[in-house]
């Protein structure tokens, strides 16, 4: 069929969970595949190499998804190659759009990251203390290379122009189904926008007191899930129960999957449209509903790293972007 959409999927620094959520479409994916011709899906699914993508003519791919943040020089290179080949580039999932969980690495110096990964972790056996090197010579004649470790994690948007962003870690498969249908039908908003239903997690959450026409009360307690305080009532708002839930400022395309199973929202959906700095907005809205300063002090004491709490998925895309050295 000549009018099939040429489709590419590139995994950069992510975990391939976003690709799983596309595969999770199950039967709907079969219908969609009638409209898609997969020309590149690497390194996870299709048997194509990076050089095959480099050999494709520019602008020859209609739609490209990227999942994962930019961590290595290889990711940056491939993202740039894909950008030149693709007409529409979608940052699929929160890693590509905002940096994701791995973005919290920006709060630690490179040495600490390497020490944890290659020396200190209990499963590591590295008595000689060898770190990965970008280049090494084996047997005195074979030069082998590895991609370079960039000095910080960046979202895809920092490296190339991105046409659309999709939040979620991973995006919920029901939302992916809607999304893919919209793309196949050519029903897309202006470039540069988030692809979202536009509702916050609280909006779609069964625990929202507004569902019962009750106003949310201010927060007087501070609890953490790890402390094991038991389970809240089925319809009780997690925030009101004392748990720090970021549902109010997060895109709710997940249908509030986490609050449904007693887990407070951590903001993987990305910010509501119009917000530039997710963590600052989250902090602002939580701060406004605390009962008094004493509760705020208790919250600070309870959560030892406020930056990691508020920027769990969005640190590299925040205004500061990383930890600043000695200011």
């Amino acid at each position, binding site marked *: 069929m000549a009018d099939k959409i040429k489709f590419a999927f590139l995994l950069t620094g992510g975990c391939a969970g976003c690709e799983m959520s596309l595969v999770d479409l199950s039967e709907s994916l079969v219908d969609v595949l009638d409209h898609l011709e997969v020309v590149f899906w690497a390194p996870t699914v299709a048997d194509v190499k990076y050089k095959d993508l480099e050999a494709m003519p520019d602008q020859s791919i209609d739609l490209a998804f990227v999942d994962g943040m930019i961590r290595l020089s290889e990711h940056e290179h491939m993202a740039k190659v894909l950008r030149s080949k693709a007409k529409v580039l979608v940052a699929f999932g929160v890693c590509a759009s905002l940096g994701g969980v791995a973005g919290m690495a920006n*709060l630690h110096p490179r040495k600490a990251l390497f020490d944890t990964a290659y020396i200190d972790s209990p499963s590591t056996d590295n008595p000689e203390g060898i770190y990965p090197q970008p280049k090494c010579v084996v047997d005195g004649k074979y030069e082998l290379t590895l991609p370079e470790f960039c000095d910080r994690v960046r979202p895809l948007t920092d490296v190339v122009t991105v046409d659309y962003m999709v939040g979620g870690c991973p995006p919920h498969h029901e939302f992916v189904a809607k999304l893919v249908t919209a793309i196949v039908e050519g029903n897309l908003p202006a470039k540069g926008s988030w692809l979202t239903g536009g509702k916050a997690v609280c909006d779609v959450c069964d625990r929202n007191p507004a569902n019962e026409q009750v106003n949310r009360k201010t927060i007087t307690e501070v609890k953490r899930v790890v402390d094991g305080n038991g389970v809240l009532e089925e319809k009780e708002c997690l925030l009101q129960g004392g748990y720090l839930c970021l549902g109010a400022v997060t895109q709710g395309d997940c249908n509030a999957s986490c609050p449904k199973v007693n887990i407070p929202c951590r903001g993987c959906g990305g910010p509501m449209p119009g917000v*530039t*700095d997710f*963590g*600052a*907005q989250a*902090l*602002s809205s*939580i*701060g*406004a509903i*605390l009962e*008094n*300063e004493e*509760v*705020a*002090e208790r*919250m*600070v004491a309870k959560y030892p*790293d*406020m*930056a*990691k709490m*508020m920027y769990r998925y969005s640190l590299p895309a*925040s*205004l*500061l*972007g*990383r*930890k*600043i*050295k*000695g*200011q």
Partner: protein
Amino acid sequence: MEYTPNIVGFACQWCTYAGADLAGNLRCKYPPTIKLIRVPCSGRVKPEFILDALAKGADGVLVGGCHFGDCHYKDGNRKTANRMILLKKMIADMGFEPKRFRLEWISGAEGQKFADVVSEFTEELIKLGPNTIVEENAA
């Protein structure tokens, strides 16, 4: 060149901004380090504004609002107070000296207090030295 701190100030129009006006009328002396931005209420100051100022190289940020009970919008300053406690911790986690940020309640009658706060803050920032984030990011 001698280092003079660059302070971004957010002043509530009902209290601190009027206080700054009064400081001028009273001919109070304070260093010309503060760039004052008038806001309707200290509750209008999103934490994002403060992070933006620091990210763009401001050496210090001052937020000024009304004393508790004086807020024109009843509880805007209380919300600010809660937010700023969380924010102070967050900017410390991001590597900034929390002293670069200051929250003060200054009423319209406290012109002298405004001048004192700015003088004191300026001295503190001189001790801390400049915010080098812009140079650091460019490197």
